[in-house]
């Protein structure tokens, strides 16, 4: 390291004289001494080189993620030097930007008001959403250009990097409008990649004036929880959408599931508990596909009675119940509480039709529909597509990540045929008139003393899915009545 440069010069100046001087030292111990000392030098130089390599590696590769932590107080220091970057939709709409007024005051502006409040988030009154996840990115300026260095020198603020989200503004707007004044949430995912195309939660709040309205928003006297992102953090009983999981559990337990046969008499009783089909309808003789498409409660609760609780629980947990979702967006874990020794037959029957104590988030339900649509492979949902410099230069692209294969291709194919039959011959036949072939499952989650939650999960096109959605409308009525029309509008918008 040191020697290279002056090798030539050295030979010139020292020459023979010094070499002979060295030779005059005969002692053997001196030679071993030299050797041991040199090996010590190697060890230490090695240690130092490794340490410097690690330091360089940290600064090059790891520091971006590390300093993004909310615990890093230096974010505020950076904010003084950089104009926070924009957050964009995938179709080029600005979802968040920083505007500097004549007096030089910076204002964070959200052109679509409360529409993206949860997913894009806020910077006032605590950070949330993408604003939090990519805080450092937005406060970092692509600095390799001479201009950035010059701006730094003359004290002009550099523009921060822009975050391009996966959100589809057109689709989001349709979902937002279709949800209307209702409470609830909509999630749309591209099942092939995991890109989150839309994520709406209502009621919402306007991040533009959160500071002024903070008292009323945080007090939440109406118990509406506008700050809660219902799409990923709201937990609801899944209702009949859970029959997807029950059907898979039945298929795993009974390889001859194609021979399933059940005669629905409209109700079934077990030790004083009565489970009835919706509107007390008598469905008659059913195979599994018919039972699913008609959403026959008596069939499925009977299946639940026979399933081994351990297997049922194991399957649910393999589908990410009882654990955090594999997603960067903050989420609450769905829960599946059936347990051997604790749960009786009654609870098993209720759980099988999505009542009982099972809870699921709309995001999770969308991921399950997307997993079926994607042939059994769950993709990690993500909301940030790429990071660009203010000048539009690509700095970092997020690539789709596989979470795991959660069901075999055969299982997924059969579940797809079940979901397709719901549209062709079942409770979602309303969607059959669309140009695009849709598959899905409706759900009505009964609520004690209140109107039920209305669910729909589904995907389209049925043979080559490009979008999977999950919709919940709180305390409004049945799935086919309230969630389906929203799905209809979204599919229409996405495929036209």
């Amino acid at each position, binding site marked *: 390291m040191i020697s290279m440069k002056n090798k030539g010069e*050295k030979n010139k100046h020292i020459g023979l004289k010094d070499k002979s001087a060295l030779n005059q030292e005969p002692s053997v111990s001196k030679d071993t001494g030299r050797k041991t000392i040199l090996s*010590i030098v190697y060890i230490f130089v090695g240690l130092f080189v490794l340490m410097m390599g690690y330091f360089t590696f940290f600064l090059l590769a790891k520091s971006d993620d590390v300093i993004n932590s909310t615990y890093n107080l230096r974010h505020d220091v950076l904010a003084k030097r950089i104009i926070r970057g924009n957050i964009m939709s995938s179709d080029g709409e600005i979802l968040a930007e920083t505007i500097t007024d004549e007096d030089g005051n910076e204002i964070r502006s959200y052109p679509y008001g409360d529409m993206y409040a949860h997913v894009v988030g806020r910077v006032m009154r605590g950070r949330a959403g993408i604003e939090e996840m990519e805080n450092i990115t937005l406060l970092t300026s692509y600095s390799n250009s001479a201009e950035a260095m010059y701006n730094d020198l003359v004290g002009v603020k550099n523009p921060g990097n822009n975050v391009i989200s996966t959100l589809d503004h057109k689709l989001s707007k349709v979902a937002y409008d279709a949800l209307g004044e209702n409470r609830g949430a909509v999630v749309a995912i591209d099942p092939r990649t995991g890109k989150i195309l839309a994520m709406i939660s209502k009621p919402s709040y306007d991040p533009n004036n959160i500071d002024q309205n903070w008292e009323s928003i945080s007090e939440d006297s109406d118990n509406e929880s506008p700050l809660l992102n219902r799409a990923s953090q709201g937990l609801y009983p899944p209702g009949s959408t859970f029959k997807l999981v029950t059907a898979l559990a039945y298929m795993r337990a009974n390889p001859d599931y194609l021979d399933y046969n059940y005669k629905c008499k409209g109700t079934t009783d077990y030790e004083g508990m009565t489970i009835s089909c919706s509107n007390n309808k008598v469905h008659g003789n059913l195979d599994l596909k018919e039972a699913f498409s008609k959403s026959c409660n008596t069939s499925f609760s009977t299946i639940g009675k026979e399933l081994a609780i351990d297997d049922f629980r194991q399957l649910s947990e393999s589908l990410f119940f009882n654990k955090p979702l594999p997603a960067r967006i903050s989420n609450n874990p769905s829960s599946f509480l059936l347990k051997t020794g604790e749960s009786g037959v009654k609870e098993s029957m209720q759980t099988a039709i999505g009542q009982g104590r099972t809870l699921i988030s709309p995001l999770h339900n969308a991921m399950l529909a997307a997993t079926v649509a994607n042939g059994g492979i769950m993709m990690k949902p993500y909301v940030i597509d790429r990071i660009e410099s203010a000048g539009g230069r690509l700095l970092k692209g997020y690539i789709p990540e596989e979470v795991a294969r959660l069901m075999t291709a055969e299982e997924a194919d059969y579940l797809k045929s079940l979901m397709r039959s719901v549209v062709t011959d079942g409770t979602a036949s309303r969607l059959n008139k669309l140009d695009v072939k849709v598959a899905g499952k409706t759900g009505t989650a009964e609520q004690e003393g209140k109107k039920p939650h209305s669910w729909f999960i589904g995907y389209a096109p049925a043979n080559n899915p490009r979008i999977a959605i999950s919709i919940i409308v709180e305390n409004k009525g049945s799935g086919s009545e309230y969630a389906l029309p929203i799905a209809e509008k979204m599919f229409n918008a996405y495929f036209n």
Partner: protein
Amino acid sequence: MRIVIEITKYLMLIMMGAYTYHAFKASAKKNDNALKKTFRQMTIFLFLFHFTGYFTMYIQLQSEKLLLLYGGQVVLFILVLGFYKIIYPTISGLLIRNMLMLLSIGYIVLTRLSFDKAVRQFIISGVALGLGLLVPIFVQRFSSIRKYGWIYGIVGLAFLVLVLLVGTENYGATSWLTVFGLFTIQPTEFVKLLFVFCIACLYSEKTDFKRVCAVTAMAAGTVLAVVFQRDLGGALIFFVTYIFMLYSATGKHLYLLSGLAGGSVASWVAYKLFDHVKVRVMAWRNPFVYIDKEGYQISQSLFAIGTGGWFGMGLYQGLPTTIPVVDSDFIFSAISEEFGGLFALCLILLCLNCFLHIINVSLKTRDSFFRLLSLGFGVMFGFQVFLSIGGVIKFIPSTGVTLPFISSGGSSIVAVIMMFMVIEGIINGDNSLNIRKADANIADDIHEE
């Protein structure tokens, strides 16, 4: 204002880079005149760097006290360069300048972190440098210093035991001693010097099996005493220094290997036995999981280094004070945050340069006592730098070790100055040791191997 801070930031990086480059160039120079020229350039960069640092702070604080401190330091630097050259004409100019460069980095960073601590550091290091003027004479005139090996060892051990009995606790380690109720010292720092002297004396006499056993027992006692002070980094430094000195004195690979194996076993036992060791390892492996408590310090350190990036935030532009004990164990993070990662890399290289220079003395001297002495000091210095920096960048678990010449801490600064002065004494006193050669030839040896 902002523009000045930005410009000086890059200027300081350039000067540090240039200084480091010249330090390595000087290591390889043979020619007297060329070497003189390189030294002159190093001196210029040293003073320019020091000036730019205080200038950047002055324009932000506008405090006269800063000017006073700066002036004092300049006078000190001039006196050191002048006096040492006059009294010891054949001293190593490279080592002296490196020492002053490291000191000036320390002065600037400490002034930025805490003015009072910087003043204290300046006074103590100034006194130490003055007293240090006598050290080379001692080393070269009194050959009897090599006769008291056991005494050094026993006195050192006694000090450590004394600390265990009446010491005061600080940062979780019981290694401070209050002297006459006036000030506290950390005897471990001085025992380090005695320890190396002791080993060098005893092994330069003979290295038969009996001697090895006896000395190892004494070294083990010393290491254990430091372990009992809960000073893990200190214990590691003693241990590693001993193992390498033993290896070098005997030339037996077996000793090195069994020593390192024994050290690994001992570390594992310490991990199982002591909670404070477990906590450190835990915080190292996953600082962000324990960010609220055990991992707080290392997380803050990584935030500082990461946010500073390659070029740093500039003096007073970062938040180094959010890192606990930033002025001593974690000072490297503060440097990296405000001076930048490139500057920090130069600093590591500069320390490596000092290490190589000291080891080179060991390689060149024909006196076996001096050879072991300088080897021990070189290893001790190099390993302490490695532990300190490696710990704060999360390369290894943090062991709470100061960065020589830079961290605040009176005992540690005095000890390391004395250590360098002993090396200077060896270089100056050993007539067989041609200075230019000492400066130059380590490169050859690495090359020849």
